[in-house]
């Protein structure tokens, strides 16, 4: 098992190298540069700016310099948020996005698992149809509709919660609900599907035959297997949740990573884009690894293969 994990970590290095290299060259192909503005800067100024950010060197040189700094863990200065380095901005934004992501995940699991299990216990009855229709609705309503809708009801009409900001606990409720809702809906559907499949199997019948209560069978015996699809969905989902959502962060004015990333793309903030892509890539690779490990633990068959 440990060998497997070590091997997988080693595999990440070439993958990351390919990602960094591809992004490094492709972002420079996009028309428009970081210093293009409404008012064209004079050639002298452009020259100094290019020199400052080492954009005057030949491309291969820039690439080698970037890789050298990267090996030392230095992602360079941001072009747009010029007073801050990319490392600092990621360090500032990621805890915020992580926090939001964890709350949203909690919301998603709490609602999704509950709804999915309840639905699977009496398939094709009202107990199934009602939560599943709500889940369908949750998948269909995009966050950019749900967010303002929740803000309208809970902030503008009821006046219970603030519409924007990221300070006290009261600021965190609406964004977590908004971000969690869509994931909750997916989780509910996956849970129901997984549970139905497991509940139809022989060992469940055996457990029932032994006289165990329905609740005990579902929670102790079926859940472990029924959650398989949810777990494989959670890997990329958690990475997505933790790295921030541009939409939710923009709607609620949250200083997280998602907003930095999209702003960076619009501003041709090369170093910031690179830093963010790298950060995302590492997170996603790590979560995929974590999922594989958890799945092996949940399913003895996979463990033996590994």
């Amino acid at each position: 098992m440990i060998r497997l994990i070590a091997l997988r970590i080693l595999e990440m290095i070439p993958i990351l190298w390919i990602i960094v290299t591809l992004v490094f060259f492709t972002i420079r192909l996009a028309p428009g540069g970081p210093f293009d503005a409404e008012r064209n800067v004079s050639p002298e100024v452009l020259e100094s700016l290019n020199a400052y950010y080492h954009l005057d060197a030949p491309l291969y040189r820039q690439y080698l310099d970037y890789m050298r700094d990267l090996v030392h863990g230095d992602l360079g200065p941001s072009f747009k948020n010029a007073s801050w380095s990319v490392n600092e901005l990621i360090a500032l934004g990621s805890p915020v996005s992580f926090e939001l992501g964890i709350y949203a995940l909690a919301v998603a699991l709490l609602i999704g698992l509950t709804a999915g299990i309840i639905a699977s216990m009496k398939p094709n009855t009202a107990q199934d149809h009602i939560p599943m229709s709500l889940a369908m609705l949750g998948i269909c309503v995009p966050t950019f509709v749900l967010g303002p809708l929740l803000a309208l009801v809970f902030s503008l009409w009821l006046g219970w919660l603030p519409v924007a900001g990221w300070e006290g606990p009261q600021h965190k409720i609406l964004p977590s609900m908004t971000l969690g809702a869509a994931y909750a809906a997916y989780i509910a559907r996956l849970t129901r599907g997984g549970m139905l499949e497991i509940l139809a199997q022989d060992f469940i019948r055996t457990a029932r035959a032994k006289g165990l209560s329905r609740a005990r069978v579902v929670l102790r015996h079926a859940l472990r297997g029924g959650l398989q699809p949810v777990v494989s969905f959670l890997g990329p989902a958690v990475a997505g949740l933790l790295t921030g959502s541009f939409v939710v962060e923009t709607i609620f004015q949250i200083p997280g990573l998602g907003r930095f990333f999209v702003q960076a793309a619009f501003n041709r903030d090369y170093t910031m884009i690179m830093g963010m892509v790298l950060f995302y890539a590492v997170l996603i690779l790590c979560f995929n690894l974590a999922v594989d490990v958890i799945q092996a633990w949940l399913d003895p068959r996979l463990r033996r293969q590994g």
Partner: protein
Amino acid sequence: MDGVDKSVWDHGQALVWAVLALLGLVALIGCVARDEQALRVGNGTEPQGLDPHTVSGVPEHRLTSTLFEGLVDLDCETLRPIPAVAESWSVSEDGTVYTFHLRPNASWSNGDPVTAQDFTYAWQRILTPALGSEYAYMLHCMKNAKDFNEGRIRDFGQVGVKAIDDHTIEVELEHPTPYFLSMQNHWTWFPVHRATIERFGRMDERNTKWTRPGNLVGNGAFVLKRWIPNNVIEVVKNEQYWNAANVRLNRILFYPTDNLLTEEHSFRTGLLHLTENVPITKVPVYRRDHPDVLQIDPYLGTYFYRINVTRAPFTDVRVRRAFAMAVDREAITRNVVMGGQRPAGTFTVPDTAGYTCDTGIDYDVEQARRLLAEAGYPEGLGLPPVELLYNTSENHKLIAEAIQQMWKRDLNVEVSLVNQDWKVYLASQKNLDYQIARASWIGDYLDPNTFLECFLTGGGHNNTGWSNKAYDDLLAEAARTADQRRRFDLMRRAEGILLGDAPIIPIFYYTRVYLKSPAVKGWHGNLLGYISFKTLYLEEPGT
């Protein structure tokens, strides 16, 4: 079984208590009295930085003008120069030498006195080529400043600024520049604290840590307390400020508000006193239901279309004029933009420091059709395909569609619309890779020159390929002219040439549309959109 149920119940109870505690906390935070004189401002976007020598843009101007102060400030109501760090000044007969007398009690936020040398140091810094300051050209009116900035002169001693003593500065200008004083509240002219700059890097080094909270030493009415990118920038009253006794705000919180809807919601729920914008669709609602908070100020800016004069069919001035004349500007301001904007027949906003161009482009379908026929395209027949480019935005799209229809209706020409992402659009304009492109220009200072210099031959934001010697000569002569009336006459003639040649199609003059809480007092909207935070204060209704 019993035991399991009990523990579930215990957990349930704990959960209920946790929720109650959370709600209590929320209520408690909600009830904490709003602290006195803390102004909360929606500031558009996250600023590029706080170093007055390397920033550009409106959000940065707001912030830097709370943290720094120039020699002369502007009165928000009249836009006339008023004393700031300089308590008085005199101008030579020919208008080219200004002598400023600094007030002895002006000091930096760390207690150091503000001296004449702080200004010469700052101006040398911004003009130093290696710093690469995008806005350094604002100082080019000083003698030899342009040559120093562009590296032709290495000795700053030759630039027209001298510290006569600690409290006297003499500035020699290239030409009489009637707007020189009113430019002084622009961030590019602000002094910086030498010891602080050099503690964190070289004089000509960008983006050092000197602008961080705790490091930044300024001479403005406020000091930097907190800066969390994409979240908030907080400034608090500077007790060392020479006029601190008359500054009434204790704190200002600037929020980056890039989502218009959220900004409006924040205003409605009392999180903001001032917004940067209002969603266009909300303007009629506010106009009807809450006219007391909706603010519409004329703004020193023009929304216009550029025409690439190097591409057929727009190489022909008659075609350009025909297109320019077939725009019903009234209909656009009345039915499309609806924020109190005025239709624009000229490029320079009327009554800019007393200047108004009397010849303009009018909506004249007959004349437009005739010109198009003369150019060889009667009824629009035979005209090569025409594309109109704008940067992706709902508002630009609406305007472009309206104008597309007008050209179809009045000239019988088909124009296709193309939108591009901001940076791509900028590159297309710069490379003259377009036929007609949306554009806007916001004046930097209160003088027609800030508009007209855009279209000098090879000017940094000409971007049309248009060049006219008579135009260049008239503006050069205006620059040498001290007499304001004669100067404006020359500029009027120049603008007449520009509008007659029509490398641009003016559409409307901007307004600044925003929301302001009635609690904000001492407020004067103005053409420059300049906010002097040192004279504002809050007075909650009923207190």
